[in-house]
């Protein structure tokens, strides 16, 4: 098992190296002069030149690259010019916020989408099947900022059930002591149900927004793959052996149908993690997506490099997890390793 994980990591090394090179080059060809931005609108050309020199931007590209890689090796992702903090600190602060939001959104989505997909496949052509199609289509066709705003309007403005959409925690509560960076988990570890409830009430609307959006791919994939498996020979054998419908659907059909669903989950998760900028903006969520966007607008390349690299590494880890999950579900994959 350990050897397999090691092998998988080894195959990911080239792609990580590729990502490092590409992001480095991309940030260098992006329009906008970092030194000029950093110096401010009133700076003289001389001052800009000086800043450029201190940032090492006057050096040839290969030299800059070597320095960049050396810094990476020491765990130094550079400094954000806008926040003035080391990029690694910024990311360490903001990544858990995004991850917590995305994970909860995904969990909600799975809890609704998978049973819905199974039902739609088992009762193909029924009312449930059509309802499932409508819900999924509606969910994916409404842009997230729109569903997010509607939710805020209904649940905050009209009903007043949820708190103001202003970040991860109401200002009356103090941040729970840092353990995982996930407020829900940290507050539980600290034994603080008040904070837990507060964090959850802040989290629930953006998470539902994400869930509505990601419902479609998961439902459709579950349905399609269940339909394929339900018409396969071994399900016929199971039915011909008189197994109960529950057993046939859960043990025989669903476990086999899970493989494509897991693949989709991985894709949806990595997509959401990087692409939920809009949700973060609507809910003033201090996530990694809005951080990257702000840096991009400011031509602040260190955070962008850091962001892309973090995403790449996360993506590699996620794929590794999915591969391992494959092995748990399907013994044939375990063998090939």
């Amino acid at each position, binding site marked *: 098992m350990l050897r397999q994980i090691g092998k998988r990591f080894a195959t990911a090394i080239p792609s990580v190296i590729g990502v490092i090179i590409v992001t480095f080059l991309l940030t260098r060809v992006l329009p906008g002069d970092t030194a000029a931005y950093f110096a401010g609108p009133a700076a003289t050309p001389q001052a800009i030149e000086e800043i450029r020199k201190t940032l090492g931007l006057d050096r040839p590209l290969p030299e800059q690259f070597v320095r960049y890689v050396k810094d990476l090796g020491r765990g130094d992702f550079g400094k954000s010019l806008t926040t003035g903090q080391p990029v690694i600190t910024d990311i360490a602060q903001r990544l858990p916020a995004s991850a917590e939001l995305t994970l909860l959104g995904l969990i909600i989505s799975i809890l609704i989408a998978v049973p819905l997909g199974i039902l739609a496949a088992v009762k193909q052509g029924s009312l449930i099947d059509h309802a499932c199609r409508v819900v999924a289509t509606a969910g994916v066709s409404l842009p997230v900022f729109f569903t997010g705003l509607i939710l805020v309007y209904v649940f905050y403005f009209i009903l007043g059930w949820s708190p103001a959409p202003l970040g991860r925690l109401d200002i009356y509560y103090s941040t729970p002591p840092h353990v995982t960076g996930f407020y829900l988990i940290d507050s539980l570890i600290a034994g603080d149900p008040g904070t837990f409830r507060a964090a959850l009430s802040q989290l629930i609307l953006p998470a539902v927004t994400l869930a509505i959006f990601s419902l479609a791919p998961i439902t459709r994939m579950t349905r399609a793959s269940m339909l394929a498996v339900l018409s396969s020979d071994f399900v016929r054998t199971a039915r*011909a052996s008189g197994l109960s419908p529950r057993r046939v659907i859960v043990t025989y059909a669903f476990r086999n149908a899970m493989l494509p669903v897991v693949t989709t989950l991985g894709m949806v998760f990595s997509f959401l993690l990087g692409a939920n900028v809009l949700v973060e903006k609507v809910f003033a969520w201090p996530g990694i997506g809005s951080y990257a966007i702000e840096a991009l607008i400011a031509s602040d390349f260190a955070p962008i490099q850091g962001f892309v690299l973090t995403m790449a590494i996360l993506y590699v880890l996620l794929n590794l997890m999915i591969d391992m999950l494959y092995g748990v579900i399907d013994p044939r994959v375990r063998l090939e390793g």
Partner: protein
Amino acid sequence: MTSAPILLDVQNLTVEFMTRRGVVRAVQQVNVSVAKGETVGIVGESGSGKSVTSYAVMRILDRAGRIAEGAITFSGIDVRDAPESEMRDLRGREISMIFQNPRAALNPIRKVGHQIEDVLIEHVQASPSDAREKAIEALRRVRIARPEERYHAYPFELSGGMCQRVVIALALACQPQLLIADEPTTGLDVTTQKAVMDLVVELTRERGMSTILITHDLGLAAAYCDKVVVMEKGKVVEAAPSRDIFKSPQHAYTRKLMRSTPRIGVDLRDLLPEDMPPPAAQVASIDAATDKAPLLVVSNLVKEYPRQGVSGMMAQFFRRKNELPQSDVFRAVDGISFEIRKGESVGLVGESGCGKSTTSMMVMRLLDPTGGMITFDGDDIGAIPAKEFAKLPKRKRIQMVFQDPTDSLNPRFTAVRAIADPIMRLSDIRGRAAVRARCEELAGQVGLPEDLLDRFSHQLSGGQKARVGIARAVALNPELVILDEPTAALDVSVQAVVLNLLQDLKASLGMSYLFVSHDLNVVRLLCDRVIVMRAGKIVEEGLTEEVMSDPKTGYTRELLAAIPHPPL
């Protein structure tokens, strides 16, 4: 037998399917009865409704199908109107079924032992505490060696024959009264087929069970059944004790079916229906074949594959130092030599996994050999990498007819497009009209009506698809054609026609054939010489008649003995 009480009685059964083109009657007015302890064969070609009949008995028709008319009575229970819960009790406990393609019939990601347990527990034949013991016992009863280990195996870890044993164990676990075997041995090797059928017969006899054997193989039905029901297009055309039916078949369809079944002492031409005139082409040139120059010489051919799980650079890197590298390779083809002369047909026979397909792929130059020489018409073609060979003019001199006529045609191509493909790529014929004319000429040669040329492959029958495959292979006037089980997926009557067609084409176009098959009976009809392979090596080689009548090795004898023969 007739005195035994009737266990299953099917009266006037009609099954309808709702399709996009309206209601299709798959089975019409079928009557079948099975007495206790009796074995009844239902014989027919594809589309005859034999499987649908059995699904109706189990009531596991898919959503589109329904029993429109008739009655099914199983030991006093009205199967047609019984509530679903009662049917569920019946399935697996009273009536069970074994299927074609055993590997697909088992849940691929569940241990076989657990699958047997599921059935035992469902029908309260075992409690969770003793289920494991009983599942192992069920495996032992179907003669699976080391059942305690096999209990933990997944279907992909077992051979096809072993999987079918597991399916049988599953079906017999609850001691049912009726076993329905739907093409239980199709796709298995002859020797495995014999072992599986003997096992089924032995187990059902010793429990006094009734069996329905659904098959397209008359020989199999004759060898194992008390009574045979012949079906054609959803109707029963003849039903009689098997002794009578083979001695004096009454219905024209039964006679046609029997005529076209390859069997000992029968010539290729005899397989054709009585009313079909013998083809005009003469078979004169065959005798002269023996003293012609060799067209293809294969010497000391070897193909090695890395064993699973140790491939790849990374794996090499992470392998522990004390592991031995020798065990990493598996020799699929282990140093074989043979030759094919001009105008000769050579049969390559063996069980699945013996390396015959690998050999044909290497000769076809789709696969690169690990060692040895392939000399075609004086040139060493084995040394040319497969990728480059496709671009050489030599490519058109060796062509192939593939096993599955459906899967080997591009579903988005019409028949004429499929045939034109090699012509446009490799011949000098240019221009729409000229290519079309050549395709029409080829269609005429293989007996494909011209009006079918613009159809897509799903609009063609199995036999028509096979003709398209053959037309495509002979389009470039090749000198050597490799036939990889070209008739394995076809019904016997279609097979008879296709085999005759191949024989005529060979005579008129002067080609050589390398015929790859596991079916000695079919090989015998078409080939001058036979090569028998086992585990990557040639065990016997000789003139077809000699090998068939006087096999030199035990293995060939075993292969020959395993073929079921209709008592004709």
